């Protein structure tokens, strides 16, 4: 079953509604084995909800429909025991705030051993040895001495390393990292991105990296999905999206970020604000903020279609493709999108 399908996770027409308000409008997405996929978008665009829904982690009031397949096995509406086999074992997830994901009253060694017991049935000395190996792997120095410390005795960056160690305990095929570096200082953020890359090279696991930081995404991912108001609006390789964003929203995101080099010009913001999911505009949700919008954009929502260059795009009036590659190279070279 799994061997015939190269895709590890396949989401089809995934929809989520809270109390009748639809927040996810049909997500189609695949994650191949060993691949690193980035999900970017601003708060409320549904990038976290997509993966919480896929793993059955949303509260009961959320209505989830569509298809969620992991190795060909349907998870949507599956039994709790089936879900639990996947969660932590096949797919692990880490979150933005590591200190609130760790149990403050348990020693960190015990928390990692617990994960090893549940997912791999390891006990006693074997579990301890494996936990120490994981701590070493995520770069906690002097692990044997710190095995019995509590979470508050670690810094924010180290807590995130502990979370990653715990996520690795089940030897997952996919790690979903939801804004894992947002709460961390700049120099520590660089360390964690470096660690994620190293771990992926070492274990061959796939990575879904959810972030609003386009710079960070470009450094750990191969493919990127840009989300807006509960839909994927553009998807492509990092090189494609960063050299030639075609969706006006993707383009707007790049333009809005200040640069670390070049002239200190005024920023180019996207006018207006993200729409309230209760009152989505008719047609394309981005059309009221879009500089390229025409009348037709306000009546029908453009479907996400494959383009000639392999990217997917949901837009009737995309940013014209740049014909000379010189412009694109210059933009990358100058770090225009940083």
């Amino acid at each position, binding site marked *: 079953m799994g061997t015939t399908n190269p895709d590890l996770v396949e989401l089809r027409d995934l929809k989520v509604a809270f109390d009748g308000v639809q927040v996810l409008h049909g997500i189609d997405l695949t994650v191949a084995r060993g691949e690193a996929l980035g999900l970017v978008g601003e708060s409320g665009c549904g990038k976290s909800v997509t993966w919480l829904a896929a793993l059955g982690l949303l509260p009961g009031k959320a209505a989830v429909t569509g298809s969620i397949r992991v190795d060909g096995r349907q998870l949507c509406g599956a039994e709790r025991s089936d879900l639990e086999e996947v969660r932590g074992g096949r797919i692990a997830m880490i979150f933005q705030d590591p200190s609130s994901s760790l149990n403050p009253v348990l020693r960190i060694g015990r928390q990692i051993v617990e994960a090893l017991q549940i997912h791999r049935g390891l006990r006693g000395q074997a579990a301890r040895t494996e936990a120490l190996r994981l701590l070493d792997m995520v770069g906690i120095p002097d692990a044997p001495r710190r095995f019995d410390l509590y979470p508050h005795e670690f810094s924010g960056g180290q807590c995130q390393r502990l979370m990653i160690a715990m996520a690795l305990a089940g030897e997952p095929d996919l790690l979903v990292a939801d804004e894992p570096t947002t709460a961390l200082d*700049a120099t520590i953020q660089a360390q964690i991105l470096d660690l994620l890359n190293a771990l992926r090279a070492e274990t061959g696991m796939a990575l879904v990296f959810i972030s609003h930081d386009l710079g960070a995404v470009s450094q750990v991912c191969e493919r990127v999905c840009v989300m807006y108001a509960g839909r994927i609006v553009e998807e492509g390789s990092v090189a494609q999206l960063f050299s030639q964003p075609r969706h006006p929203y993707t383009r707007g995101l790049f333009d809005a970020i200040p640069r670390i080099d070049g002239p200190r010009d005024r*920023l180019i913001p996207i006018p207006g604000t993200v729409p309230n999911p209760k009152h989505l505009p008719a047609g394309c949700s981005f059309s009221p903020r879009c500089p390229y919008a025409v009348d037709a954009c306000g009546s029908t929502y453009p479907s996400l279609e494959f383009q000639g260059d392999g990217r997917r795009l949901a837009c009737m009036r995309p940013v014209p493709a740049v014909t000379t590659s010189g412009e694109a190279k210059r933009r990358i070279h100058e770090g225009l999108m940083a």
Partner: protein
Amino acid sequence: MTALLEAEELVRIYEVRRGIFGRPSPVRAVDGISLAVMPGETLGIVGESGSGKSTLGRMLLGLDLAQAGEVRFAGSPMPRNGTAEWRAMRAKMQLVYQDPLAALDRRLTIAAQIGEPLQIHRLVPRQYQADRVAELMEAVGLRSDQAGRFPHELSGGQRQRAVIARALASRPKLLVCDEPVSALDVSIQAQVVNMLRDLQERNGIGMVFISHDLKVVRNIADRVAVMYLGRIVEEASSDVVFRSPQHPYTKALVSSVPVPGKPLEGRMILQGEPPNPADRPSGCAFHPRCPVAQDICRTSSPALRRIGDGRTAACHAVAGETASIETMRRMA
């Protein structure tokens, strides 16, 4: 031209007790900081959490008392916190901080809150107050129909605009902004940064812009001071600092900003974490993480000194132009 704001050798020490019976140990949150802000100038302050940048911002406004050193505003010393003189002076210097929802009163409309400083400082006769509020709202890009809204009815960006409008009500000469756009989404962040730049150009306000986001600071600040563990380690114009950082910490900080298209491998990734301020390393506080630390760095703390380009830096390895080239070669 006299500086709008001058700080000289500011020190703020907190006593921190470890455990109930632990002996209190001093934490030098701000450890001898001097700086100046000219009228109409923006000074950016960057540093990681625990570097003391927020404490410094509060001290500049007299909200936290300096245990040593002095703050002078427009040439005269800052009056004591809580006195009538201090309150009068505070109308001229305002604070904007990260979380607008916490800064606003949930039970008052935003028009009422923007108008409050006008009443407190008795700046505008009551009958003209509504006009002035409307003017302020327009200046920060809020629509007039939003005047009667409560904070929870506004988006994050709109709330921050309301906070800024309130700060501008007393026509301040100085604005201290502590992470004002950190909680906002990228597209909204750009709107607020542009707005602050416009307001400053129009009104000639001096600004202290505290942030951990180097890209935003580079865009808005004329000059930048980099803090590490309560001290300034490098200060220069924004262009100079980001084009050619000299202090190894500044180099690492600038290098840690993820730039699309630039692979991770080429970046300078620091080992270890910022040290606990209560457990300050001997000598240069940065030496345990510094890739070019020498013996002298472990024993003697480098002073902040001029090294050309209108730049000051506190590093033994960065003595002058010639030494810095050698350092660069060693770090490459």
